[in-house]
């Protein structure tokens, strides 16, 4: 706690687009009162001041090289609560896509004969490196969800991250299901919480929030096949953000 009694929070970034931090900044547009209840002591994207005595650490980005690990461990040591901020930190996110190709080829493709200059390994969620207390899913995170997680943490409650499928939110919004319109969607296996924003804007859910604890995978695949997808299409849609989660299955298959 700081002298004014406000809990101190800090933001850190690893391999990511920083869109989640940007969303945090956006959430301040709607909720400037946030600054009345917490003290932000580190936020490199937005401020120069720096403090090391934080209680809650929000970590954006996946871990994609060995040299990131000590920094993550240091954050874990200091913070009472570590929250993964967004799909990269929570799941590995799009960064994990490169795991679909042999790492050597990936390096060479991008850096050619200079490939060895650049340190990298398969991108992974931060939970693969340190213990994580909670995750705010999404690519990017939903700004309202960010605020409600902060409130819950300040009250000592479990953050209200749903563990039911996106279809729930989609239906409650009264959307026409994309399948009715001949499109496909991963809503039935994806964790809700974004307000089904993609289907609401006519686009298929790509599971950026990860899967629910107990998805009916077989049934989902059958639905996708019935909708005309090939096995390759299904692998593709299943790996957009969740390569790290489904990679084992893919490796087994092929």
């Amino acid at each position, binding site marked *: 706690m700081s002298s004014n009694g406000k809990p101190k929070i800090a933001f850190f970034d690893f391999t990511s687009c920083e869109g989640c931090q940007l969303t945090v900044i956006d959430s301040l547009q*709607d909720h400037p009162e946030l600054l009345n209840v917490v003290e932000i002591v580190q936020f490199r994207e937005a401020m120069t001041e720096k403090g090391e005595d934080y209680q809650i650490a929000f970590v954006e980005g996946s871990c994609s090289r060995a040299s990131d690990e000590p920094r993550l461990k240091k954050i874990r040591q200091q913070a009472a609560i570590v929250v993964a901020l967004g799909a990269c930190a929570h799941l590995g996110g799009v*960064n994990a896509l*490169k795991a679909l190709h042999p790492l050597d080829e990936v390096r060479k493709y991008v850096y050619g004969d200079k490939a060895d200059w650049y340190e990298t390994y398969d991108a992974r969620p931060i939970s693969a490196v340190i213990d994580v207390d909670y995750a705010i899913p999404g690519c990017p995170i939903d700004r309202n969800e960010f605020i409600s997680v902060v409130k819950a943490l300040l009250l000592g409650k479990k953050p209200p991250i749903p563990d039911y499928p996106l279809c729930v939110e989609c239906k409650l919004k009264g959307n026409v299901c994309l399948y009715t319109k001949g499109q496909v969607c991963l809503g039935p296996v994806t964790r809700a919480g974004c307000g089904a924003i993609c289907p609401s804007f006519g686009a298929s859910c790509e599971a950026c929030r990860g899967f629910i604890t107990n998805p009916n995978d077989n049934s989902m695949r059958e639905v996708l096949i019935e909708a005309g997808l090939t096995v390759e299409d299904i692998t593709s849609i299943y790996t957009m953000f969740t390569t790290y989660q489904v990679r084992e299955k893919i490796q087994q298959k092929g």
Partner: protein
Amino acid sequence: MSKRIDVHHVTRVEGHGNIVVEVENGNLTACRFEVVETPRFFEAMLLGRPYREASHITSRICGICATGHATASLRATEKALGVTLSEQSWLLRKLTFHGEILDSHILHVYMLVAPDFLGVGSVIPLVNTHPETVLRALRMKKLAGDICATVTGRHTHPIAMTVGGFTHFPTIVELENLYQRLIESRKDLDATVELFSKLPWPEFERETEYVSLSKPDEYAFIDGDIVTTDGVRMPAERYKEVTNEFMVPHSTAKFTRNKRESLMVGALARFNNNYEQLHPKAKEAAAALGMKPKVTNTYLNSGAQVVEIVHSTEDAIQIVEKLLERGIQPEEPAHVTRMPGEGVGVAEVPRGLLIHHYQIGEDGCITGANCIIPTNQNINNLEHDMRVLVPQVMHKNEDAMRLDLEMLVRAYDPCISCSVHVLTIR
């Protein structure tokens, strides 16, 4: 007298970069801007993915210019596959693009740059000292974000833009609401121009080659030829002749140069090349800021951003007017007319020229990809600027020098997390 400036992870920029400057006995012995962002390998990640996913994957290159990446990506795919956009789609694309230009520029000039002039470390202390300014910035930024959200669902990682058009359309009521707010924001524009015209911009001149897109009929943001202040003009497909990329070991980003030792892209480059096409009110703003092409003070890149805030708002107003006039027709995205294909998509994102170049195979999957990011093109120029700046400020103490250097870095509005890299397409 030796000095060492070592700024580890420059703050208030997007992504990770270090400034390393060493002065020994009055001689500059080291002068680097190190990009230490982890490499992300987006081009490799695109390989084998269906073309429809490309814009969703590449928008994740950067959270700030997500709409810009998505736009350039879609244009690359659309050109590769022979897709022609409807007039309505063009209007919506441009409108949401302005939303992003506004969002990014406002964030940059108000929250990242202004604190330096006001002697504070971030926008947060300004809440108490300059509440009006902060509230205005938040209000303007919210409007910018809402423009994007109305058209594509959200600003960071837009949803409704797809190959050939849109999957969702704003309602007339939503557009009327935007229109109202855009009109009201004009007074915020005036206040913004007034605020930034009074700031003591550091005096620093270094002429370089300014590179941007250009179109005959409008201030270019999407599509167009590549032009430079050295008189080069070429179709975007020949981008490699300008952006010769090379690599340096201290950076995970790639550097570029054209004819000179370095080149600069971004708001200032656009301003210098396309000044005539600015909205008259934007030209007034430029006058108030004392800017007339060609401006060679790098710090005034932020000034050019202020000018573009005015331009984008005014152009957005015209676009919304037009949309309201013609009404909104929900329409299917335009069709792909060929496969395989190859295409180059270009856009002037907030930080400058962005190029996506794809090859798409028979099966609709991407077989080759190349993305050139504005910040990569600028870093080389930044180092050259630093070499000129350091001797001019060497007499100052280290803190003051550090601030000058950091401000220079920030003037570029670098977006380092865009660290993706190219390889010649085979």
